[in-house]
């Protein structure tokens, strides 16, 4: 993983570390929602919700509309996919390595047999 990828992952993880922000993301799964609507279930002030939205926006987890009054928030999936891909990448490493280990062990076994035969002859 490159430093840039790791940097993006850090931002995603940090953004997801807060339960309010996770709840906001969950809410955005079904529809685009305005900041006022988002604030309702959390009994939070609008500025407090805005702060959370800024963190989510910086991490690329949400996108916001441009309208000045009603800036609807929308969930962006790609950083979440990247987190899931993170470990899948390492699983692949071992799957492929183990195929090669399997072949190599076959080679080692033959060598050891030969070696054992030589020793029994001597």
């Amino acid at each position: 993983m490159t430093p840039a990828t790791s940097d993006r992952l850090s931002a995603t993880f940090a953004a997801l570390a807060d339960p309010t922000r996770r709840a906001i993301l969950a809410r955005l799964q079904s529809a685009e929602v305005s900041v006022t609507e988002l604030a309702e279930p959390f009994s939070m002030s609008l500025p407090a919700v805005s702060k959370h939205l800024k963190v989510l926006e910086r991490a690329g987890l949400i996108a916001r509309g441009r309208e000045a009054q009603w800036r609807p928030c929308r969930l962006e999936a790609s950083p979440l996919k990247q987190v899931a891909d993170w470990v899948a990448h390492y699983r692949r490493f071992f799957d492929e390595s183990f195929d090669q280990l399997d072949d190599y062990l076959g080679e080692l076994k033959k060598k050891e047999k030969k070696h054992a035969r030589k020793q029994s002859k001597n």
Partner: protein
Amino acid sequence: MPASNPRTSPSSNTDDKNDAFIKVGERDLTITRVFNAPRELVFKAWTKPEHLTRWFKPKGCTLPKCEMDFHAGGVFRFVIRGEDGKDYPFNGEFVEIVEPSRIVFKGNIHDVPGQNVFTTVTFAELDGKTKLTVHQTYTLESDATRGAPTGWSQTLDHLEKFLITA
């Protein structure tokens, strides 16, 4: 990662109160494979560069650097060269070695500070075959991203849900 990166620089956000250097991400990975070879032989394949260079890499990649001091506390330095010609360093230290049943090591991935992996490899006998289990915990740490270190498994459970619907 550079500390000066504006994306992850410490800010004055309300959720950035915690000054501790914390883990921002953690994931576990377990892989099991049964090899048709005696346990001693499978273990041996992990003990020396001449063996590891033959298999410890993804397909199409090479291991141009493979130095290791195979005992507890000994360090290892690997470079995996990708098909694209890029080098990916993996450096670390052996934590525990129990021949022929267990190897534990910790390492840093691709020279990225805070991007670490803790690995436990166990070798179990299975009627002349060997069951190999690799358990890894990947962590991503950053002094620039601060928050509550708890609730990770929960976060990742939620994440799985998002991915299904996203």
